[in-house]
């Protein structure tokens, strides 16, 4: 039997090679289908990994509170509506909600940063020291500022790696240097460890952190002291996050004197939710690719079935001869099944190559990470085998059921 199968595969390959164009066209569906499966899974896996890394880098236990985009029409004055979150909110949350280990706050502006004769526009954030620990920033040089710096609004700054690269020569020591923002001299006391891009493609290292008080009193020139753009909170354990979110909403609503029925004037987001949005995008794409893959595999299967039916008709006499010299039904059946599977497996191989190329291209062009695992390749390959087997079954059976005399007499 092994000899039979082996020789039948050799024959099938020979027939395939003889009809290269026809075989190629037939395999197109399989090639695209398998390619799409591979591209789909590797893009999905890549996105999943990014999300997991993101959660790990941001901390699964981080909660972010933003002022809500929803307008509370006419309830407050035009000026009042700008002040939705305050330092007092952040401190009160910490005081009233025991599961919160820390709360921090920030305020951001894009400003020009000057070092000697160089300048660079970057995102300047006034933050509380707790913000730095919640966001889990670490330092490649120097260190963070302290509560004392906050209290006395010291003129110090922490630079992201991108800012350092733009403002300093390679090898030049940034620590101790004095930079100017809106003509205010700030001494560099730390350089943040690089974080790279976030899932939205923003450079997280293009940032300058200064004490919140320094920012609002000496650099930004804020009208309303104590207003913040974002409050960050953290819990000890990731499991406490949903409970903490509920408490935060309660406290915030009572602090903002919202009556029941009035919508929140703030938004509470957890890191997990934010990354889920991102994951959702890649899921949409995955679903799209899955549809392409299944349609292509189906069309490919039909193509194989069609070409095999043609082949069975063309070779009716040959089938008759084979039966006359002693081929049993199973032999004929296997011959055409093996032919179908050879088509689909060769198509599958090409599809694997095509899929890997597509995944690589996605990484190069869209900048999405992709992961090609051995499992994926094996699965895609299995798919093509099954398609060949399934769609080969009908023509193979048709061939096996031919009457030898009629087959021999076929013109």
């Amino acid at each position, binding site marked *: 039997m092994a000899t*039979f199968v082996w020789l039948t595969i050799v024959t099938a390959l020979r027939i395939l090679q003889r009809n290269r164009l026809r075989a190629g066209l037939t395999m197109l569906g399989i090639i695209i289908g398998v390619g799409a499966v591979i591209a789909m899974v590797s893009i999905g896996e890549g996105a999943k990994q990014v999300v997991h890394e993101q959660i790990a880098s941001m901390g699964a236990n981080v909660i972010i509170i933003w002022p809500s985009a929803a307008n509370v029409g006419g309830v407050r004055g035009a000026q009042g509506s700008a002040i939705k979150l305050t330092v007092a909110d952040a401190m009160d949350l910490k005081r009233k909600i025991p599961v919160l280990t820390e709360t921090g706050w920030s305020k951001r502006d894009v400003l020009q940063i000057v070092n000697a004769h160089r300048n660079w526009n970057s995102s300047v954030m006034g933050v509380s020291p707790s913000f730095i620990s919640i966001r889990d920033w670490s330092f490649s040089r120097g260190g963070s500022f302290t509560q004392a710096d906050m209290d006395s609004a010291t003129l110090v700054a922490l630079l992201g790696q991108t800012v350092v690269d733009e403002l300093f020569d390679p090898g030049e020591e940034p620590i101790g240097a004095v930079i100017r923002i809106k003509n205010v001299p700030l001494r560099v006391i730390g350089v943040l460890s690089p974080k790279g891009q976030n899932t939205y493609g923003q450079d997280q290292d293009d940032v300058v952190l200064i004490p919140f008080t320094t920012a609002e009193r000496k650099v930004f020139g804020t009208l309303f002291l104590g207003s913040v753009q974002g409050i960050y909170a953290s819990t000890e354990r990731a499991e406490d996050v949903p409970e903490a979110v509920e408490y935060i909403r309660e406290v915030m609503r009572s602090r903002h004197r919202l009556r029941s029925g009035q919508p929140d004037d703030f938004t509470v987001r957890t890191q997990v939710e934010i990354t889920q949005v991102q994951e959702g995008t890649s899921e949409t794409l995955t679903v799209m690719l899955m549809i392409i893959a299944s349609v292509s595999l189906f069309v490919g299967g039909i193509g194989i079935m069609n070409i095999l039916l043609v082949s069975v008709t063309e070779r009716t006499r040959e089938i008759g001869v084979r039966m006359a010299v*002693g081929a049993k039904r199973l032999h004929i059946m296997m011959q055409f099944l093996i032919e179908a599977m050879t088509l689909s497996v060769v198509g599958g191989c090409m599809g694997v190559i095509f899929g890997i190329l597509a995944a690589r291209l996605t990484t190069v062009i869209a900048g999405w990470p992709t992961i090609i695992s051995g499992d994926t390749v094996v699965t895609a390959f299995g798919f093509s085998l099954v398609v060949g087997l399934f769609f080969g079954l009908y023509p193979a059976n048709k061939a096996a059921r031919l009457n030898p005399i009629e087959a021999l007499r076929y013109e």
Partner: protein
Amino acid sequence: MIPLIACDDIWKIYRIGDVEVQALRGLSVTIEQGEFVAIMGASGSGKSTLMNILGCLDQPTKGQYQLGGVEVGRLQPDQLAEIRNQKIGFVFQSFNLIARTSALENAQLPLFYRGLSLKKQRALASAALERVGLSGREHHTPTQLSGGQQQRVAIARALVTSPSLLLADEPTGNLDTQSSHEIMTILEGLNRDGITIILVTHEVDIAAHAAREIVIKDGQILSDRATQGRSQ
């Protein structure tokens, strides 16, 4: 000793719609191991029908057919395939070689379904090709061979399994006189080696190579006699 072929009151009835065609009508014949029989008769008399039944490609509608003592009439398709593979070799008028496939591989075909090793298949097929005078042509495809050579490949394919029965339905029908003569010489040689041969032909001088001549008319045997042309 049991005869190789024992047909008793064989009927073959085809039904096309309401029309009934009686291709064989109660035909009985016995053929011993080692005979060389020519079957003759007008077109449509039922010769090919009889050959198909004798060759286990088809089964009689009624009647008994025993091949080597085994009743063939009620066997399943795969069992018939097994018998064809083990005991019978076919030679057709239109050669019926597999296209674009070498002479050697064509001759190997019955062995392929026996599941022999490739080495054994090749050795036996080469020997069969040598026997029909085609050594050196193993790797020629049918289109690279003359009609007579193609028919010799077909004979090699038929005898590669050392069958006890070789059936040839108008084997020289598509060949010129010279090639026909060569084919008949080969068949005579095979018969001398003990293979039973049944041959359908329209030509009297071809039939003369056989030792026994059966004439069929309207699905029945009209005459059955030993020929003068060649004695056993």
